């Protein structure tokens, strides 16, 4: 019993040993934290697992095709031009919808923020309209436009309108009033005041709105193209469904993901360029 008791006795930890262990953990941790390959570990493992599962037949191609099959069909569609045609159709719809909805949203956001009269006139109605989920309009829009381009542009434009409108409005109203006052005292006219104080002051908020809008833009386009279109990436995926071409469907999903990532990267670069004065975006 006595020996057992001594063995079990809790010894005070040697502080040097504790420090050494902590150091070891920290070095281990920092190697993981430092390596540029760390973020790629999980995706690579997943891809390998997926490929193995497909090859062994554990994952039937009717459920999910092998990654190599997706790459193969991607190459094929790229060569016969289908992918690029549909891609450019989808991208055009996205950009036209974004420009149309976004510019109206910016104009109205600035107008309601700068003019109390217009705010009273427009904002309550816009806020009420905002409660309508824009995808709920699809049946109506199809009745109006059929599967015309107008349908997609209207839906995308509607979808991107509200995040941009709300953030433009918020951006302008949150500008430091002292700066506006300074501009007046220093003789800035309306246009100069807008260009030098109000627009740059509202820009951080507008860019936040733009990032939200881009997410909604792709989402809207996917739904609209799946339901009512005869071209575009969403249409391509929906056609593939009829023939159980899971490889094409997965390819379409990946293309959408890549487009979303591309748009997000462009906004991030824009933020870094336009907000470089802001220490939060790492000046210079």
């Amino acid at each position, binding site marked *: 019993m006595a020996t057992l008791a001594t063995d079990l006795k809790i010894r005070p930890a040697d502080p040097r040993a504790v420090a050494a262990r902590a150091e070891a953990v920290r070095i281990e941790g920092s190697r993981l934290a430092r390596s540029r390959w760390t973020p790629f570990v999980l995706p690579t493992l997943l891809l390998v697992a997926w490929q193995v599962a497909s090859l062994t037949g554990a994952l039937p191609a009717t459920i999910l095709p092998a990654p190599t099959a997706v790459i193969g069909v991607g190459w094929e569609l790229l060569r016969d031009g289908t992918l690029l045609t549909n891609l450019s159709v989808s991208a055009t719809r996205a950009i036209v919808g974004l420009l149309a909805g976004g510019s109206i949203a910016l104009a109205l956001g600035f107008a309601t923020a700068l003019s109390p009269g217009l705010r009273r006139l427009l904002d309550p109605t816009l806020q009420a309209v905002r409660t309508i989920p824009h995808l709920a309009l699809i049946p109506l829009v199809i009745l109006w436009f059929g599967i015309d381009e107008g349908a997609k542009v209207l839906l995308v434009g509607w979808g991107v309108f509200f995040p941009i409108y709300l953030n433009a409005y918020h951006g302008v109203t949150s500008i430091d009033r002292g700066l506006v006052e300074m501009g007046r005292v220093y003789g800035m006219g309306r246009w100069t005041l807008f260009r030098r104080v109000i627009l740059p002051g509202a820009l951080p908020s507008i860019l936040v709105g733009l990032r939200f809008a881009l997410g909604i833009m792709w989402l809207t386009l996917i739904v609209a193209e799946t339901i009512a279109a005869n071209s575009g990436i969403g249409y391509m995926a929906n056609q593939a469904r009829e023939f159980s071409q899971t490889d094409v469907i997965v390819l379409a999903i990946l293309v959408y993901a890549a487009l979303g990532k591309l748009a997000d990267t462009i906004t991030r670069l824009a933020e870094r360029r336009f907000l470089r004065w802001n220490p939060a975006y790492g*000046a210079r």
Partner: protein
Amino acid sequence: MAHPPSGNVHTLSLSQAQGGAGVAIHDLGVAFGSNRVLHDLDLAIASGQFVSIVGRSGCGKSTLLRAITGLENPVRGTIETDRGRTRVVFQEPRLLPWSDVRANVEVGAEGSVAERREQADHALALVGLSDKAAEWPARLSGGQKQRVALARALVSRPRLLLLDEPLGALDALTRIEMQRLIERVWLRQGFTALLVTHDVAEAVALGDRVVVMEGGRITRDVAVVAERPRRHGDAALATVEGEILARLLEG
């Protein structure tokens, strides 16, 4: 003006202001709603004079300044001055964070792009910040920001410069440096200056006159007679400072 063609050109361009503008305020009243902030206020400032206004918080001294710039609308009375050539240095620097230092100074400048840039560079040299021209305001210290704000005011060749507690947020040493800088550019450019402050020592150190405000009225108007540039710790200044402090504390 027989200035040499080089070297001193900027002093020339910055001192072209047509002398200081006089200020004549008669029977001024300002109210926020039913709350009367200024009462029956009369104040005359001669062209080129440096006047300090001191008083406790809420005595109406900042409101007076804002009324002179036209940022507050008086309910009665008149203010005569050259408002088009009146510039303000605010308590906060109020720099545009998204414009670099030079562009911030150019806000006050006039003329073509090249002229504005040249004026801005000269004004920055005057306040000793030439090397910060391309910097973002966020990178500057409080004192440097206030010097940029001063350069922005100077570049517009003001005839009347209003200083609304511009040094309130600065540390003691920086304050003294800024006071000297303000006095130096005032002596050089000859504009009329009106400084609002709650620091009696500062008011006395800079003003030809110190106007004491209490409860929205002017209660004292003291001439400060001492040589320029003022020396910190001058005995004459200390006497005036003591008098005014005594008055403010008993009130």
